[in-house]
């Protein structure tokens, strides 16, 4: 790797720390929803994709089956696959390095890499690796802190933690709402999921909204 662009380095580091701090909310959410500290840490190490992780603990916490949880998380994980498609030709790595690259292919590493496009391919690769490893480090570190903290608290409702956990998820959706169509979709899916909650098993009411996204996306 050649000289590291200072702008790229700054971008990567600030994203890594800010996003990594979200890990606290995840660790707490996992424990609040019945996962053990070990399971919370394994999810952050192995799944390593915030939205999928919040989804699986949220679905099981709401009483959904393991299968509903896995399905919701996996639907959310599809986009990492598409990021991989975009990143692979630029990273040009094989074997073990490709496995590592795949594991750190997430929203942030891809976004920072694409943000470096004006600085050339080498800056893009640096942005990807720095952000990928940076988020991985801080996300896992903060997950442990959040999980242990929640475990020490006992009744999480008395500390407002059940609400803090819900507050972390709007934080994940908010930056994605760019157009009025996005906002309308968000509200429609929230309302629909609630409407289906009394009749569908927990978790399925969430998964069902993916079909609305597909219908809207294909129609445009």
């Amino acid at each position, binding site marked *: 790797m050649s000289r590291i662009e200072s702008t790229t380095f700054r971008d990567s580091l600030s994203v890594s720390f800010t996003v990594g701090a979200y890990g606290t909310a995840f660790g707490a959410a996992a424990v609040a929803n019945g996962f053990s500290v070990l399971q919370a840490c394994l999810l952050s190490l*192995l799944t390593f994709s915030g939205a999928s992780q919040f989804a699986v603990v949220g679905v099981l916490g*709401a009483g959904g089956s393991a299968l509903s949880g896995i399905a919701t998380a996996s639907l959310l994980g599809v986009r990492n696959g598409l990021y991989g498609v975009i990143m692979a030709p630029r990273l040009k790595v094989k074997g073990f390095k490709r496995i590592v690259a795949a594991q750190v292919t997430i929203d942030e590493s891809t976004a920072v890499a694409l943000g470096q496009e004006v600085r050339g391919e080498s800056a893009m690769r640096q942005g990807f690796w720095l952000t990928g490893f940076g988020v991985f480090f801080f996300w896992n570190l903060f997950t442990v802190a959040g999980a242990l903290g929640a475990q020490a608290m006992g009744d999480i409702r008395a500390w407002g933690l059940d609400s803090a956990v819900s507050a972390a998820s709007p934080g994940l959706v908010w930056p994605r709402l760019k157009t009025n169509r996005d906002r309308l979709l968000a509200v429609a899916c929230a309302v629909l999921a609630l409407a289906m909650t009394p009749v569908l098993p927990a978790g399925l009411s969430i998964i069902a909204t993916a079909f609305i996204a597909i219908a809207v996306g294909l129609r445009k």
Partner: protein
Amino acid sequence: MNAFWLATIGTSLIAFALKYTGHNVPEKFFAHPKVQSVNALIPIALLSALVAVQVFTEKSKLMIDHRLAGLAVATIALFLKLPFPVVVISSAVTSAAIYNWL
């Protein structure tokens, strides 16, 4: 193996499989704008639904309680573009206050 272990391991395996597959298929398969569009919309749909279910339900029943106040404060904080820790802590404090004293 209980549901929590199954969910932890299953989610992790599929998450990696999806990421790794992406690195091994040619880019042209997914260049279609509709695929890109659906890809951007799915997280919006699922995460919005997840927030709603987390805040307004308890064991498959609809319910309005202290969590709604927490969500309201979080939304205002996000709207004001406040930093993430402020969003979460203000939400937690509001919710805890209502749960403990109302």
